[in-house]
């Protein structure tokens, strides 16, 4: 998978490396900005309230 990505990236290895770092940064940003906030409420340590059902 990673070998395939590396192969389809254009340029010599320096350009490939820059593209790869940009890709990694984009994935990290998307995860932290959009994915993690969605799954965080399902984690067991974020409940701070008392409710009738005992759930958040």
């Amino acid at each position, binding site marked *: 998978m990673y070998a395939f990505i590396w192969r389809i990236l254009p340029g010599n290895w320096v350009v490939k490396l820059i593209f790869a770092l940009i890709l990694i940064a984009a994935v990290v940003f998307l995860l932290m900005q959009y994915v993690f*906030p969605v799954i*965080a409420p399902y984690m067991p*340590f974020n409940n*701070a309230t008392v409710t009738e059902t*005992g759930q958040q």
Partner: protein
Amino acid sequence: MSTSHSADQPVGHSSARSAGGSVAAGDQPLPSRRELRRREAEAAAVQGEPTAVYSDVPPVFEQSQPTHAQATQAPPAVPQGHGGQSPQGRLGEDQPQLPPTRQRRRRQPTAKEPLGPIRGTVRTFGELCITAGLVLILFVVWQLWWTDIQANRDNEVLADELTQDWANQDPNELSDDPDEPVVAEPAGKNEAFGIFYIPRFGDDYYRTVAEGVDLEPVLNRMGVGRYPNSAMPGEVGNFSIAGHRVTYGKPLNQIANLRPGDEIIVQTKDGFYTYTFRNFDIILPDAVEVLSPVPDAPDFKGKDRILTMTACNPMFSARERYVAYAELTDWTPATDGAPDNIKDSKAYDKVSKNGGA
């Protein structure tokens, strides 16, 4: 390759010959270090492998040490090739092409050759597993570290906005009795209306309090949240709030460090409400009766002004809730300035400087 083969022969022969003459050479004064090493290796090889006597081929690979020592003169690939081919040492003499085939074989895996379907699938699966692990690590980093940074930043911005709003509003009318606190006006859902100062949590501790206990946006971004339908600060009844104990700025991280007598100051537009911590309890998540005006006794109306704070317990778990109860002991109108115990604190400095409240 024929040159390297011929170059190899004298090396083996010379070392074999010198093995025989090593005893006589021992008497000569000051042999060179290389010579000494060679003799040592040769002696060891002879002792370890007696069959070496019968052939001049085995010494070639048995004495890979001395040939290595002499490799400074010979091309290094040749003695290595012979040393590596030790199981076929005798064959190696007749087939000088072996070292190149070996080299070719070694180079093969690095050559860009598409993987077969099975190896390709296995490799992709492995890469996906590693990626999943990295994503999980990233999630932990995000949850434990990044949410704190975000929430602390949001908290500062929100407190600034709040104090600026207060500066532009008229405070509520004070009652005739100076001991009778002004009851804060109810705020809209997800709206901040006050600032908590808890000196026990640190000199620079302040957190905004907003209306509602939803994770988003209140608890995750706006500090602590007030349970809807509970009392407002200064009101008779139970002013109940909830806050994260870990992650998202962890406003109630040190809730278990509160000691009886510790003061919790809530600043609103009207002034400062000083609540004094009395006791704590650890309850199950569905024990909503702790929010009633008389905690644990929901049938009674109560006449005290109580503050109840809930957070998760133990940390990183949703099994129980930690509850801290405090009681209103003092009230200072905004015009009189902050009470003494927070007047000089870093937290109040910061809030008052930015907002000018």
